[in-house]
């Protein structure tokens, strides 16, 4: 097992500064390394100012609302990646489970909004359960398991969208309000309220509950956590079910935002959801990070998206800038936390 040795964030890493970096590291860098969230906040602020210079109208309640409207579903989807990555996994099926949940919610719309939402969430839980069984009990690599699950869902949805899910074109008014509406004179979108509640619960679950401790433990050191008596498979099933639930929430919000459901509903959110968690400083090897950083990551990506829209960047420029920012921030993060 090379996990402990090679993991840069392993618990066993001694608190020594590598000799080649020691003297060169300034006090500022050390402070920043100790407070990664402050760095992210600074990046966010810089981006907001830059966007404000490009388009002064952005720095207004309306601009804020538009950015948040986009960042909220992304932030919730990135929560799935955060919890999965903390265990050393990843969930590449989020986009499709979100779409599946949106489809079911759409079909159940005639039964009323509560039934529709519960139905959608149930789909998310079911997908998560299967993922969790595969990863936790049958020990399939999470990358492969969720990749396969994504392919399965694409096929199922394509077939079902012509048969039993064909009525899913419209969503209930309540869901539409939840996904696209806002209150206080159209300033605060409702989906941000949902995001805030989800964020609070996820952060509490990760930092203040026994479940959260076990999530970090199995991601940090699988062997030690097993010796410590943690039943890895139970934790993994719970984590992937939570991931499915969160993806379903994001999917229902997205359906509400667009007012209808189709197969491409959440596709463009898959890679950004991973990117948001990575920018937020959650280690893809597990055991280090948290949802607080991911929230900043989602906000940064939301503002970046607004910026790219304002400068009227083409798809090509948009993608290159997007990739460069993700790479640059991840690099910065790795440097700052290298001697943690």
């Amino acid at each position, binding site marked *: 097992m090379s996990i402990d040795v090679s993991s840069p964030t392993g618990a066993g890493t001694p608190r020594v500064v590598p000799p080649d970096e020691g003297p060169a590291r300034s006090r500022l860098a050390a402070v920043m390394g100790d407070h990664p969230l402050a760095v992210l906040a600074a990046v966010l602020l810089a981006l907001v100012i830059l966007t404000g210079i490009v388009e002064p109208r952005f720095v207004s309640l309306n601009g804020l609302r538009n950015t948040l409207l986009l960042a909220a579903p992304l932030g919730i989807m990135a929560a799935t990646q955060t919890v999965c990555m903390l265990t050393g996994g990843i969930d590449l099926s989020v986009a499709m489970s979100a779409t599946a949940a949106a489809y079911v919610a759409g079909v159940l719309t005639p039964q009323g909004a509560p039934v529709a939402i519960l139905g959608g969430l149930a789909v998310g839980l079911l997908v998560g359960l299967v993922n969790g069984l595969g990863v936790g009990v*049958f020990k399939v690599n999470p990358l492969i398991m969720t990749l396969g699950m994504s392919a399965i869902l*694409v096929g199922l949805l394509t077939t079902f969208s012509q048969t039993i899910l064909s009525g899913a074109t419209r969503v209930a008014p309540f869901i539409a309000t939840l996904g696209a509406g806002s209150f206080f004179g159209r300033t605060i979108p409702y989906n941000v309220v949902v995001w805030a509640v989800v964020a609070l619960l996820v952060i509490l679950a990760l930092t203040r509950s026994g479940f959260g401790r076990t999530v970090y433990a199995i991601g940090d050191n699988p062997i030690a956590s097993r010796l410590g008596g943690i039943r890895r498979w139970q934790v993994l099933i719970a984590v992937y079910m939570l991931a499915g639930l969160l993806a379903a929430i994001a999917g229902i919000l997205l359906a509400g935002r667009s007012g209808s459901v189709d197969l491409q509903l959440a596709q463009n959110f898959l890679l950004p959801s991973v990117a948001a968690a990575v920018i937020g400083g959650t280690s893809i*090897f597990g055991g280090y990070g948290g949802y607080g950083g991911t929230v900043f990551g989602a906000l940064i990506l939301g503002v970046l998206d607004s910026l790219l829209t304002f400068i009227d960047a083409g798809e090509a420029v948009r*993608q290159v800038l*997007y*990739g460069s920012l993700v*790479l640059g921030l*991840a*690099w910065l993060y*790795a440097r700052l936390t290298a001697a943690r």
Partner: protein
Amino acid sequence: MSSGTARSAPVAPRTGLDLGRAARRHTWTFGVWVLLAALVVWYTTLIPAFGAFEISSIIRSGLPVAFLAVGQAIIILSGGIDLSLGAMMVLVTVVAGRFMENLGNATGLVIAVAIIIGAMLLDGLIGLVISVSKVPDIVVTLATSFILGGLALVVLPGPGGGIPDVIRFLFTGSAAGIGLNPWPSLIVFVIPLAAMWYVMRRTRTGLRLYAIGSSSERSFLAGLNVRRSKVLSYAFGGAMAALAGLATSAITGGGDPRFSIGNIATLNSVAAAVLGGIALTGGVGSIMGAAAAGFALSLLSPILTSLQVDPNNAQVIQGVLIVLVVMLGGYWQTRRRST
């Protein structure tokens, strides 16, 4: 790492080779080739006529996935993973489609070689960034998949371009991209595969790649230049992605910058590498297995079509199969290790 000097089963025997022993040591690779053979045989019974056209079609349409699977396998064996390999392939198709259009055969060949070298340098640069930045491979290549995809759109905003006849002939056996002659595409696949197999299994370079894949810390402590090997593994992967891109262009006769093509190709390459017996933790497996798994994956969809399965259900079956094989494989490997 089970054995750096071990040999792969389906390769020409050395003196005194015990085939049974080789099969035992490389059961997985061997099994994938048997699976591929079984799929081909099954396919022949499913379709009314099986002749030169079908053989050439199987090889031709399997080339992109197989090349990409081998490239991904080399990178995973060396302890990395490249989620931008498909985007690199797409970039190669558009560069080929745009810069080879209306060119003579000789110039076309020169440009093809230049593209392969360029892709090696570019992917090598990605490896260097990973090594210098110490950011995990999966994160860096996720970011570069956006960058490469964006560059592809810059080169060619929409599907188009043209490919010289000689390139189309080399990868598909006919200047029209479809034909009866399977030999050129077979040779164009076997030569790079054999070369990569030789490098991975018979040279110090390959041993170093397996070593850093097993444990880059221990390789470093043993005095290996980990960074150089890392860069090299990505450069090899880039070369394979370039070949996959050229093969795709040769089939379609142009370039296509759509992002989703690259994404699907990346996912298939990872799936094929895993099916081919490459452990995602690095250092275990053989590129031969990945090559066979690439062909087997590309054969699934014509088989399911000839079984008259709805293409959408075919996707479900493919997903279930990938998960099941990996599940059973993991179970079998843990059992074998414990006995």
